[in-house]
């Protein structure tokens, strides 16, 4: 198998990398680009720890081939804050203890941001269904839902 060159934009910056034809986008982000924020919890699309956006769409990067990212705009957890200024979701997760071990947090933040970008005023049920693809084993989700709703309220009033 010969390597493939891929040109993309990651968190707003142009990035080129080479990858194997069977390499997942998650492996390329983590292994080739050193962006280890996205995690591999399962590798089969069942946990959401690897969530990123591709051209604005929420995807499991473990299920997408890196080569498919040619020309795409990729967003990862590393791109959510602007420098040292945290996004309201990030601050809200800290304020509401929306994380314990934190390994699910990158994926949940990416997914929650994708939700609020589409629907700035979701119901609790909408948040719970949107995040149903993101497993968290530590929190029981209660504080995660509160954190998302608090950030949403803050963003609406901003």
């Amino acid at each position, binding site marked *: 198998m010969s390597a493939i060159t891929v040109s993309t934009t990651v968190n707003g910056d142009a990035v080129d990398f080479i990858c194997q034809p069977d390499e997942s986008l998650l492996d390329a982000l983590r292994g080739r680009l050193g962006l280890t924020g996205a995690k591999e919890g399962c590798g089969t699309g069942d946990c959401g720890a690897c969530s990123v956006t591709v051209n604005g769409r929420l995807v499991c990067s473990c299920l997408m081939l890196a080569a498919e990212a040619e020309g795409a705009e990729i967003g990862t957890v590393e791109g959510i804050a602007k420098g040292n200024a945290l996004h309201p979701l990030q601050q809200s997760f800290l304020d509401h203890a929306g994380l314990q071990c934190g390994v699910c947090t990158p994926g949940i933040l990416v997914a929650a941001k994708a939700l609020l970008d589409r629907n700035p005023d979701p119901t609790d049920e909408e948040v719970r269904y949107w995040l149903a693809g993101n497993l968290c*084993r530590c929190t029981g989700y209660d504080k995660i839902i509160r954190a998302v709703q608090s950030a949403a309220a803050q963003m609406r009033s901003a």
Partner: protein
Amino acid sequence: MALDSHGKREFKQIGTRVARPDGIDKVTGRALYGADMSAPGMLVGRILRSPHAHARILRIDTSEAEAIPGVKAVVTGADFSIPDDAALADISVNVMARTKALYDGHAVAAVAATSAQAAKAALKAIKVEYEVLPHVTDVDAAMAPDAPVVQKGRSLESVPAGMGANVTHHCEFGHGDLEAGFARADKIVERSFKTAATHQGYIEPHACLATMNGDGRADLWCCTQGQYMVRTVCAGVLGIEASQLRVTASEIGGGFGGKTTVFIEPVALMLAKKSGKPVKIVMTRDEVFKATGPTVSTSIDVKIGMTKAGRITAGAATLRYSGGAFPNTTVDMGAQAAFAAYDLDAVRTVGWNILTNRPKESAYRAPGAPQAIYAVESVVDELCLALNLDPLDVRILNAARKGTKSSYGPTFDDIGLLATLEAAKAHPHYNTPLKPGQSRGVSCGFWFNFGGNTCVSLNINTDGTVGVTEGNPDIGGSRASISLMAAEELGVPYDKVRTIIADTASLGYNDVTDGSRVTFAVGLATIKAARDAIKKMCGRVAKIWGIDEDAVEWRDGAAHPAGPNAGKFPPMTLEEIAAISFETGGPIAGHYEVNADGAGVSFGVHLCDLEVDKETGQTTILRYTVFQDAGKAVHPDYVEGQMQGGAVQGIGWALNEEYIYGADGRLLNAGFLDYRIPVASDLPKIDTQILEIPNPGHPYGVRGVGETGIVPPLAAVSNAVSRAIDVRMHELPMSPPRVLKAIKAARG
């Protein structure tokens, strides 16, 4: 200095919801977990696993694998030594099979290669010749005298003669005259229960990065609940000295007990040794399910007698636990915990451990307790229904309290069970009428809590800030709690304190993060280390003032003269003392080392409202409230978080989670798709109420809070389901097909 008068102590910082020190790293993706570390030139390690539940390994031919370009090392069981210590020896054999593969997924060989592709090809090229043996995966079947023998000669002396070869352990607890107790009962209920093995289900798979130099010095980075435990085990299995192996704990993506042992670490070290290169191993989720965790599977009989008024006259239980292919004594904890919530004149529990062809059990949150208490609380509920009694009233009537001789021996000191039950009774949740089709379940829960070996250093920096060095991986906010306790004791603001977790070369031994011990024991050691530093600072000030050390006291972050006789001196703050420490005797640090006891038992009560779809068997949880005694909640956010997280793991156990084995002994559901843990849309809010009944064994009254929360949901949910469908459920999980079957069977 203030005595340990926690009952009256006014806290300034304990109990506040401060920002956690690792928070920003964790919301920005910067925090480094097990799989996030790399080293120049590192190789990819992969493990080959047995496809058979039970098989003799006749021959392993690795020559073809070794010839594949990019493959730098191959190891098998022959490369590892078996330590003398029986527990270490079992870990060694579990890490890499020797003569037999004992379960589907048991490691048989491993490779290290320059790429994932080459490693994968190498695994395929290893030829293992197996002689497949008969297997057994069910605990009751394994106990039979004619069952396939998993491992010979492993029975402890506690096992009476004549038991099957798979029975390795036997225990008994209790007191009083059972027969007389049952004779006094107006109603006796006797039932049998089964609970499936469940996995801890941490989202981060096991991962490590190992290097070993030609001179024998080794470094290991890994996600673990205890870096010192990893060092002990790896040094034992590899036959190296502890000082030569430095283990650094990464940030940890959940453990729940499942990361209190090792699986891949000795393999990575051995591959690193053979190849002369750093080796990283990251487990796949499939490997996590097949070869790590899970908890025990159980089969339990319970018999309880009760008077018409609701007083329990006698309780008895027989527990059969299997922790897979290796001996363990988890059943001891189940047998001790089963009736812990009750004040009983006559109680007896008997436990057995039985080997099966399943993975080696790892601790899972309150190991052994949820299953036993589920069975007992189910029978108590059935008695309440039969005698038309309120389930909380009955528990209040029978509740263990201060002075109760517990069902497992010790007499309880101050405990929070009664207060917790009364809080539940008074709560709006319990007093909200149920709508048609809804039902409510109640259960108590209990955990012993641990203390253990702990070592803390506390450095007073010259700018008046404080560094705490501790040795327990932070699994859910413990660095914040430890910093809070140091800040409280020293009288400095929280944000002047930074707590870090040391590698094994930088601090003395610490037991693993388990048994809900960290906030208790590391907290205790931190407070004592702070007191040690305070004593030294007071000594420095005494010298400056030219008075006796005893004439200086510490208050609000400063040294003061201890009374009018001590002389008149303006107080010296920690910052001032620190700034001139080089002139008064050098750097200032406090230390404390302890094997802590006095952890203080923990009780909780859960209320669960739900409804069951009688057409599909699907259960929907509508409302859930957790009441738990925290002794003193150091950081209430993370106490609530433990209560909520434990409750939801228990709900998953009650409703969905189980290890499913096929007739061939292979695990059928080794992935998150088929092993279904609760997701956000499955659940309602989880409400919490923290009770604070101070633990006499801790300077601030702290009790561990991590484990208890997983105990009550099993029976709280089962009792509610049983009431909803009017059929007593006896088996977990209550997956829709199982509930449907129960409904149909009752209809006849």
